[in-house]
């Protein structure tokens, strides 16, 4: 459903953030992308969502060449993207965000349902402003809820676990499992968490702008855990706040 052909992303000084990436993702798969900080994971996600234009290569989505489609067009075709660092808005409420994401006039009950799914007590949050008063963990969950509300063919989550406490994290795994079962779509999660890696169909390891391995979980995960894949990366790393 998604194919990247020879994708490179270069910034000034000829620094290559992504180096000739070739990648094919099949419909309905649950993919986890992992790898060291600075490896290019977020950049890859932004290139797929259309936020950054690759300097070379082509992107296909459901057989269509979307290399020149902009963010809005890709979103309308069915690509969703939960940011690593969610955006705050003065004046817009959580309800505004969720219903804008859903693309239709939700009632409060419907919007609350998405918030409850990510472990937020909906009534307390629905009318909150998306301003600096929300904690990092809260805004991350709202970000995930907005992608749930969209329910598109492809959903990309950039480090959804970041800022979420261990207690809630267990539920988050269930959120993704449930979502995967419910939406019948393809999910790409960028994550360092072993528990997320464990529910993947396929794992992609991205380091220094290259895909250093890509395969099914049972093939890749043991290598990551035993350190065969020599990336500077520890899957047991503590959840950061």
């Amino acid at each position, binding site marked *: 459903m998604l194919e990247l052909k020879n994708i490179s992303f270069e910034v000034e000084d000829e620094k290559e953030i992504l180096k000739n990436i070739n990648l094919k993702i099949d419909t309905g798969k649950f993919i986890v992308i992992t790898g060291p900080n600075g490896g290019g994971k977020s950049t890859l996600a932004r290139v797929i969502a259309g936020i950054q234009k690759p300097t070379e290569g082509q992107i296909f989505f459901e057989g269509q060449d979307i290399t020149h489609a902009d963010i*809005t067009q890709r979103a309308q075709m069915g690509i969703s993207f939960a940011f690593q660092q969610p955006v705050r808005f003065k004046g817009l409420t959580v309800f505004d965000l969720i219903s804008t994401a859903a693309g239709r006039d939700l009632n409060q009950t419907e919007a609350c349902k998405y918030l409850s799914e990510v472990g937020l007590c909906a009534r307390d949050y629905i009318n909150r402003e998306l301003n600096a008063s929300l904690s990092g963990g809260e805004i991350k969950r709202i970000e995930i809820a907005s992608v749930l509300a969209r329910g598109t063919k492809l959903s990309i989550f950039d480090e959804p676990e970041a800022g979420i406490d261990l207690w809630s994290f267990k539920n988050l795994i269930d959120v993704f499992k449930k979502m995967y079962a419910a939406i019948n779509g393809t999910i790409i999660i960028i994550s360092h968490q072993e528990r997320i890696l464990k529910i993947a169909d396929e794992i992609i390891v991205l380091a220094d702008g290259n895909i250093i391995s890509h395969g099914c979980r049972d093939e890749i995960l043991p290598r990551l855990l035993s350190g065969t894949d020599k990336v500077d990366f520890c899957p047991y790393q503590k959840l950061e706040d």
Partner: protein
Amino acid sequence: MDQQTQEQIAKTLLKDVSDIDGVPQAAYNIRENSTCAGRMSTETIKIESKTDKSGIDIIVAPGTVQDKVYIPALVTCSGVHDLVYNDFYIGENADVTIIAGCGVNTDGCDGSEHNGIHRFFLKPGAKVLYIEKHIGMGDGSGKRVINPETYVEMEEGSTMEMDTTQIKGVDSTKRTCTGIVGPDCTLIVKEKIMTHGQQSAETSFKVDLNGENSSCTLSSRSVARGHSHQRFLSEINGNAKCAGHSECDAIIMDHGVVSAIPRITANHLDAALIHEAAIGKIAGDQIIKLRTFGLTEKEAESKIIDGFMR
């Protein structure tokens, strides 16, 4: 302009500035083109014409419980230069909501102007919520000008919140607001302004925090588009143990210009005063986020502005 259009304009303006549809179920005074177009006093709220100049006295009885009074002012045609003095006397422990508002419509090349001077005298323990909306309407090239002036004197333990909004159609506005704040009093002023085209808006707050444990919050949220100009001046003088906060949050678009000029003076060791100002265009990542929901850039922009100005 015929009688019927005139009435229709008055009705629309009235609805827009004060949410009145028909006759309000509370005390009211409607001013239209410098004359009184309707008035009702109640048991607790008396409205009387001034004898020495144009305007009214609004007297709220002590102990009034959660009452309302509407005092909209309308200018429905070109060439009107309205000047009005309204004084509010709020009795001890009275709790009242004042819905003011002004609509100016011009359809010719002559400008129209409304200058309202509102003074508030709050007795101890009084509680006032003052809501004011300003709009300009009509296709005339004549300038629509609204210059509101407010003066608030607060006695011990009283609170006042002023919410003012000017979203569209007013070509020029100069707002001044003066507060004399007594002990244990809280003054909150929130304004929202959006300017377009060649419009200009200036706000000037001056608050003297004179009483012990007095506090004030002056906040302005604004959007300047087109070639419009805005100036936000806020002066807070802390003359006792008090807390003062002024903030200006502005979005500029196109060639809009906004300046925020704070002046906070602590004349007392226990005066705590803060000023914050943030001026800039819409953050790029906000637009990007909404576009990932399928909105176009324009749609994203107006969603952000609508939220910001709500």
